[in-house]
């Protein structure tokens, strides 16, 4: 069963990670300010906690799953080289031999 969870792709690219961090920090700070003011007005700290928990769940929904907005600038990897085992084992040895002679 664990393989099902591991096969779901959860990556974001770097800009997406930065955006996600800004989003959740902003949401939690905003809900904290709202909750503090509301609790101060009605003089019950329980409501402050509830509002911050609500902000926490909204931030969870918005930033934990990898939405497409976090994948807009993907890294461009090099195209994969076709590999055969003989070539790759010989090339590093040749380069090593050349360095030793120097």
């Amino acid at each position: 069963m664990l393989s099902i969870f591991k096969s779901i792709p959860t990556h974001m690219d770097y800009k997406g990670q930065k955006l996600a961090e800004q989003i959740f920090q902003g949401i939690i700070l905003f809900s904290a300010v709202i909750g503090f003011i509301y609790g101060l007005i009605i003089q019950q700290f329980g409501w402050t906690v509830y509002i911050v928990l609500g902000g926490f769940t909204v931030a969870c929904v918005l930033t934990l799953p990898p939405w497409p907005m976090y994948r807009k600038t993907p890294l461009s990897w090099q195209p994969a080289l076709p590999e055969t085992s003989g070539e790759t084992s010989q090339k590093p040895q040749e380069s090593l031999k050349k360095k030793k002679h120097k």
Partner: protein
Amino acid sequence: MNTVLSRANSLFAFSLSVMAALTFGCFITTAFKDRRVPVSKVMLKNVDDFTGPRERSDLGFITFDLSPIFDWNVKQLFLYLSAEYATKSNALNQVVLWDKIVLRGENPKLNLRDMKSKYFFFDDGNGLRANKNITLTLSWNVVGILPLVVGSGQVSLPFPDMYETTKSY
């Protein structure tokens, strides 16, 4: 921040730090408040007291309203009534006669009539007899959300000329 777990970790840790800052803010706004409660009505009667000394004792009726103390930092109040007096052997005696825990949400208007003392009014020695000046003090401790020493207050009602004997029961 690449996987869900690391994002969830940083989100949760940030939320906890924000909650700690909010709790501190709640403490700052209420810790330095003046918590005096006006005593609305004090009445003193002199009736037969069958539980203690055989002579006529003083029976006190006190009404006070505690709701201004309950702000958002208060979780519960611990009230206690103590008697203070001076004797020949000790300069200051304090005896706790009665206490009560008031949780927030309960009725803050306490109307205490006919209360018997919960604990014995024992004196260290024989100083109660012919004691002219016994002060009854109602104090409270506030147990807050952030349980540092938030505050305590008291209302002191002097009952002078209170003559008690401990000779007969």
